[in-house]
């Protein structure tokens, strides 16, 4: 229960932090999508209900604070979570290069989805920003995911004495 109570505040804090950091580091040129990394990590660590709610809340807060179309990132993050959740049984999260590659693929898929969405719905062609904005962003997500997963492993080893695997997730509800 505490998870659901803390989640919105935590999501707000994370999205605000990534927005401010991106503003300071890149002057708004790039977005540091730490929220996407968290959703990917949730796909490996949480059950469907918790993970989907996390993705939904994270997407909602992201939509609210970044000024994107309301519901867009909610949908994207939920799709990302479900994809991660379904492949998590077959991926070894201890191998960081796999995490990096998987995160890169997911980030590029997200980019593709956003490009198609804006093209179809609003007729805006964002392909020009692919190399200068979206690709660096995807690479950054990939690098952050590696760091995040490594930190998670270390923390779990410190707390539990061993790192938790996807198969050790608790029940669904």
């Amino acid at each position, binding site marked *: 229960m505490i998870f659901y109570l803390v989640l*919105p*505040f935590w999501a*707000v*804090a994370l*999205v*605000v*932090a990534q*927005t*401010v*950091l991106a503003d*300071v580091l890149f002057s708004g040129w790039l977005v540091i999508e730490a929220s996407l990394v968290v959703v990917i990590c949730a796909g490996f660590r949480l059950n*469907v*209900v918790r993970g*989907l*709610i996390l993705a*939904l809340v994270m*997407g*909602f*807060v992201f939509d*609210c*604070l970044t000024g994107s*179309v*309301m*519901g*867009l990132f*909610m*949908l994207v993050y*939920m799709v990302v979570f*479900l994809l991660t959740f379904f492949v998590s049984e077959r991926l070894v999260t201890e191998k960081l290069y796999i995490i990096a590659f998987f995160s890169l693929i997911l980030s590029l898929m997200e980019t593709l989805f956003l490009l198609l969405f804006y093209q179809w*719905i609003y007729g805006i062609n964002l392909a020009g920003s692919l190399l200068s904005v979206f690709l660096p962003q995807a690479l950054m997500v990939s690098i952050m995911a590696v760091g995040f997963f490594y930190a998670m492993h270390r923390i779990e080893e410190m707390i539990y004495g061993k790192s938790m695997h996807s198969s050790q997730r608790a029940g*669904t*509800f």
Partner: protein
Amino acid sequence: MFFKNFRIVIFVSALFFAALIVLSSQIRQEAGAGFAKKLVLEAAAPLHNALTASIRTIGDAWNRYVYLVNLQEENRRLRRTIDELNSDLVRFREDHLEADRLRQNLALERHYDFKFVAAYVIGREQAALSKTIMINKGSAHGLKTGMPVVASPGLIGRLTDVSWHAAKVLLIIDESSNVDVLVQRTRVQSILRGAGPRSCLLKYVSKIHDVKEGDLVITSGMSNVFPKGILIGVVSGVDRQDVGLFANVRVSPFADFSKLEEVMIIVDETADGGKTKAKGK
């Protein structure tokens, strides 16, 4: 098990459906900020402010640190520059003083129609027994024993020992130095003998001779050692009270022997016999 999975499918579908409804409603109409969105913005604002202020504070501190580091570096650089400039200043001041002295010596050369060799004083011995200086020129530069040595404004001594690249000058204040001189005003001839660090005595000046304080003393040219007419000093005191035939006449040389740095050696007198050329002096 079936119901459990079914409930999950329903839950997932419901969430997707909700997201799609929100998305489609936003696409269809530019709706204003809903209540939930307002809540999120309201919650995010103080956090945003705090985080921005913190980062700005850190940024300011970092900028101040960088500024101070730069300031320290600049300070160090400026100190180095000051040291260099001070060093240059000392050098230039020294050069200036040397130029002044050389200019005075050059004036001597212009004033007297002699051939001079300039030399630096490289050592001095002004002990009780002898008062001499060492110069950095010798026979290789045309110097010979007995040549007169001058420094502005007049005579200071003569060469006594000459090696290839150095020579010793016996100063006129040395007790063993004797120079044939004239009192310029009255043409009274005498012998100038050294008498200590800052003075000389005129020997064999009769008490009846007209010599008084302030009279200039010049070389007489009689001994063929010193050319005639070179300034030596000024009569600083005349004492006729002593028993004897001669007056006790003290002469203060013009040169300051403790500060000699450059001297000129007269290596050759010109055809006119070393007569002075008054060039507007």
